[in-house]
């Protein structure tokens, strides 16, 4: 499969996951080139339309990365994103895309390893299909 078709879009909360991604870079941890990180102020900002657009543009997987449960600066942003992702998953299923291709991830700003681990898990899932 062409690498171009395998893009993963990661919507990253500026308070946690974006910093985790930065940290992964600072630690010189290698991760696949096909991840595109989009910075959002809070995971709660990510709407279903953003996720669907990513798939329309050829992404093979979408990750929404926010803070740990209960540690959202905006109290409910990450839990709302999670609910929204369920809905997005339902929509994907209807058009014949595996609902596992969209996933919510909870990270703290220092969890660079987990950031990469989640990307690799998503890559595996994409390769399986």
């Amino acid at each position, binding site marked *: 499969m062409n690498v*171009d078709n395998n*893009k993963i*879009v990661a919507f990253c909360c*500026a*308070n946690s996951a*974006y*910093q985790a*991604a*930065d940290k*992964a*870079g*600072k630690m*010189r*941890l*290698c*991760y696949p*080139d096909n991840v*595109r*990180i*989009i*910075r*959002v*102020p*809070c995971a*709660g*900002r*990510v*709407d279903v*339309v*953003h996720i669907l*657009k*990513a798939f329309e*543009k*050829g*992404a093979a997987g979408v990750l929404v990365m926010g*803070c740990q449960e*209960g*540690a*959202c*600066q*905006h*109290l*409910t*942003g990450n839990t*709302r994103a999670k609910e*929204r992702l369920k809905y997005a998953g339902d929509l994907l299923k209807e058009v014949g895309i595996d609902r596992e291709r969209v996933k919510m991830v909870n990270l703290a700003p220092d969890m660079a390893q987990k950031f990469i681990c989640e990307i690799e898990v998503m890559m595996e899932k994409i390769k399986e299909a």
Partner: protein
Amino acid sequence: MGIFLCDCGGSLKNIDFPKISGDLEKLEDVAFIDISHSLCLEEGEKAITSRILSENINRVVIAACSPELREHKFVRLLEGLRFNPSLLSLANIREQCSWTREGDVTEKATELIRMAMGKARLLQPVERESVSVNKEVLVLGGGFSGMKSALELSRLGIRTTIVEGKSTLGGKLKEVEGFYGLKTSPKQMLDSMITAIEKDNNIEVLTSAEVTRVRGEVGDFDITIRGGRKEFSLSFGAIIFATGYRTEILPQDFELKPGGNIISQLDLVEMLRAPEKLKRRPETIGFILDVCDENSRLPTLSSLNNALAVREKLGSEVYVFCKNLKVDSEGAEELYREARNRGVVFLKFDEPPQIYCEDGRVAIEAKDVLLGEEVVLPCDLLVAEERALPPEGTKGLSSMLNIGTDFQGFYQDENVHLYSAASARKGMFFVGGCRGNLDLRRALTDIASAVMGSYSLLALGEAVVEVEKVRVDPEKCRACLTCIRVCPHGAVQLVRLDTEKEVAQIYDLACDGCGICSALCPAKAIDFKGYADEQILAEVEAMGETNERR
């Protein structure tokens, strides 16, 4: 559009900058592409300055290190040049591109820059303006935390009003017998604070008063206070909640009802204040801890203090039944040692002890894990463990103000992003006992951060806001109240337009820019400049884009 590329002192060797520049130059809307070695240093700033002043550009894209590191620096630079910083878009080509791989990443870097450019094209200017804020602070609760906050704020020149429900100031300070390890007694401490408050022109005290309604936002809270039969409105810039906690012996914790031989800490304190009134000196006194609450910081401290006071004033034998004595407060370990030295006996149990009445005395039966034997101890008095609970009305107030509570019902659950005392509502601070099991030392930390927080918000009498960064389009708004319900910062209000129509409006100063409302609005009426739907979509769309496919 002007594009600045930074190769970080030549260290980003796996990105071919001339190739990127050659690739992007062909785009119509690119005015120039500069490659610099260090945008964050003085020479880089000079390069940006001269370019922006000489070229007629209306968007800036900077491809450099993470925006977490340098965004504020570029924003300040652009502000100085009278270039609206909201028209700046950043591409992170260092942490999230060059450093993630050994090999060549030019392609990825180009794409990241294209994404930033896609966003930049749609950015709209956001003006900054300063708005005036009310400099007065309301302190709710006249206990230690409340009084201390008011005094500290007064020292910084901020006027405060203390609203206390009881007829006198003092709160829990009146109910403590002594602080062992501290030279001042609670009474001395209380008296000196009250005198200081009376002398202070910056502090107004309203006793036997309560707050009945809170409206408005940070900088301009509209508070209705009822004092006696009168009800009146006052305006404040910030609110410090120091409503304290209450203690109670819950019937489910102790099957025997309190009264008679089982007493509370407060009963004991009263006894200690007037030992001459006692008919008979109690020979043995038992304390019991860790029965109802594992996290018993305050009960432990008060038991240790009171046990020492009993030894000193009554000379009775004192036994403390505990599971794991928590000495995590400052000075508590010393207090514990002092108690042991003065003859207080600590007995450690594992299973909850049995308590029953026998011949007018209370017997405690427990298996001591250190002795490995059953211990039966008849005492004249048993001081029961109390639970620290949130004050009455906390639940109602927290739901009215949209403030979270923790699992025990105290205000302000632990949240790593908020300072210990700040809350999701800007301008509302929670200090001391109302935030949970806090000892004096922790309360002082809270007070310091709340005082600092409110001072930095209000001290200048004005605050800079980004005007209508998040804006509700009155044409599209159907007043469904979704945004008002979901806003974690209470920044949305319903306002009446001059016509019949009511629409939601976002208060710039209270808004924290999370965008939850903008994602949830069913009418898509909320525009979040910088993270608008179109801007995020443009970033997504720029993936895999080439010059031809644009």
